[in-house]
């Protein structure tokens, strides 16, 4: 496994804020392409909501993003390498509840599918049944050498659709109704053993995560007995 493919733990919940083990395993938060842990999970209010619900959480920065290493070899960003890197973190901290968005959502599903022992539940959004669009072309994100390599690495990875839906545990999929990337999300859910879908009205790819109804629903889902 390529060391540079391991994500960095960028932030954690304050200790003692949680009400002990009864509150469930730590939540591993995985952001999407071109973003980082802070703008995906902090400014959207997710970390505050998890704190309020007494859940421990860990937020990573994926390679090439935020505080993580910035390799420029596309091979470091191959899907299976990113999944293996994420697995290393989950093994260290795990088992975990996985919460991922966009590229992070795909990584979460693939990790849970490949190594079910590391994940208790998965919440994944901003994805669809078709392979994600030309990552490099996603508007508004300044692309440096690392991000270009990341886009290329993910794009060229062999995409085994079955690996995306292999996880048999409780899964919550979500997306905005105005998000074209989420085409076929229902098909994805049907292909999974125990998945349900939440659609957020009037939301597109970049305005879905902060929806308060989504947070309430996801935290309740993660807290189910």
């Amino acid at each position: 496994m390529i060391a540079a493919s391991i994500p960095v733990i960028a932030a954690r919940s304050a200790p003692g804020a949680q009400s002990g083990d009864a509150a469930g395993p730590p939540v591993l938060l995985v952001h999407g392409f071109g973003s980082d842990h802070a703008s995906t999970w902090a400014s959207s209010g997710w970390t505050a909501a998890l704190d309020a619900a007494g859940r421990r959480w860990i937020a990573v920065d994926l390679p090439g993003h935020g505080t993580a290493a910035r390799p420029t070899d596309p091979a470091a960003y191959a899907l299976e390498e990113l999944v293996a890197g994420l697995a290393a973190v989950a093994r260290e901290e795990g088992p975990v509840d996985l919460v991922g968005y966009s590229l992070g959502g795909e990584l979460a599903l693939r990790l849970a599918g490949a190594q079910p022992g590391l994940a208790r539940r998965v919440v994944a959004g901003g994805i669809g049944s078709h392979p994600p669009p030309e990552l490099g072309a996603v508007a508004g994100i300044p692309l440096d050498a690392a991000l270009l390599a990341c886009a290329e690495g993910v794009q060229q990875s062999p995409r085994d659709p079955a690996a995306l839906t292999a996880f048999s545990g409780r899964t919550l999929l979500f997306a905005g109704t105005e998000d074209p990337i989420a085409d076929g999300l229902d098909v994805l859910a049907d292909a999974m053993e125990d998945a349900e879908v939440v659609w957020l009205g009037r939301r597109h790819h970049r305005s879905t995560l902060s929806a308060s109804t989504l947070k309430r629903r996801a935290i309740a889902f993660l807290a189910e007995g």
Partner: protein
Amino acid sequence: MSTIESPPVTATSELLSLYAQMRRTRALNDEAIALQRQGALTGFPPCTGQEAAQVGSAAALDPAVDFAFPTYRELGAMLTLGITPLALMAPHRGLSFGGAFDAREAHVAPINAVVGGTALHAVGWAMGAKLDGEEACALTYFGDGASSQGEVHEAMNFAAIFELPVVFLCQSNGWAISTPTERQVGGGSVAARAAGYGLPGEQVDGNDVLAVRDATARAVHRARCGGGATVIEAFTYRLGPHSTSDDPSRYRDRAEEEAWESRDPIDRAREQLRGSLDDAEDHFARIEHEITLELDAVRAGLGLLQAPTMREQMELAYARMPAATRAANAAWLQDGIDG
């Protein structure tokens, strides 16, 4: 006036106990704020964010030998010096002013809200220790706000002239209610003033618990060996309000608070411990468990704290109450019974 880099990390077990004391302080501090919101406490001055400056400095003292002089915000220092949580909560139930503990036994002066004056008490105590030939040191706490009081300047000068074993521990926490440090401390540094009195002055990162502990330990050692007084300026930040009835949003913005929140002294110590202890998580779990038990005890004990009767409070006024006063008090109490 020297700025000393943080010393080589001492034994990790020391850092772990300092971390535990800081977590304990933060937990009790947050519980007190919640209790005030629920009406169980009349008011509370949080020390959120200042745990390292308080725990680190207090840990350098030997309460059996030295004497500490707190103000009203030194929850962390007083816990570290062995004062019980309930003793420290009593004033905020309106049941005691100085705290329900024996100052003489604890070698800790009562809680005090008129800042600055106790610096001179530390000078007096230190003079007594010197006269008695004790190898002991007085440590007085004050903030950037209190550094403007004349008494603090007089205390530093007396300590210099009489070469007294005193540590002036200034927690420069950024704010005196709504007045920022730059509108409070002329010249920008309290430690720099020490040179004016011929004393050594030292600035230290108040959010680095080991740096504070080591700087204080050096000053305490210097004092005990007859080397005289030291002024330590620990830069930290009052993350919370002045007191539970203060609203900081009136005078400072979230951006500044968030910047300091990201430099939380407890997070820093926790990450250091994660780096040097492989079973860190187990220790953290144990510490949180002990804190939970202690908070349960505090909540339970709070209701059992008894208010003094007026008669008891009256007796405190004199060591030997004059007969005329006793008679007048009795008559006054009788009116309360008749009326």
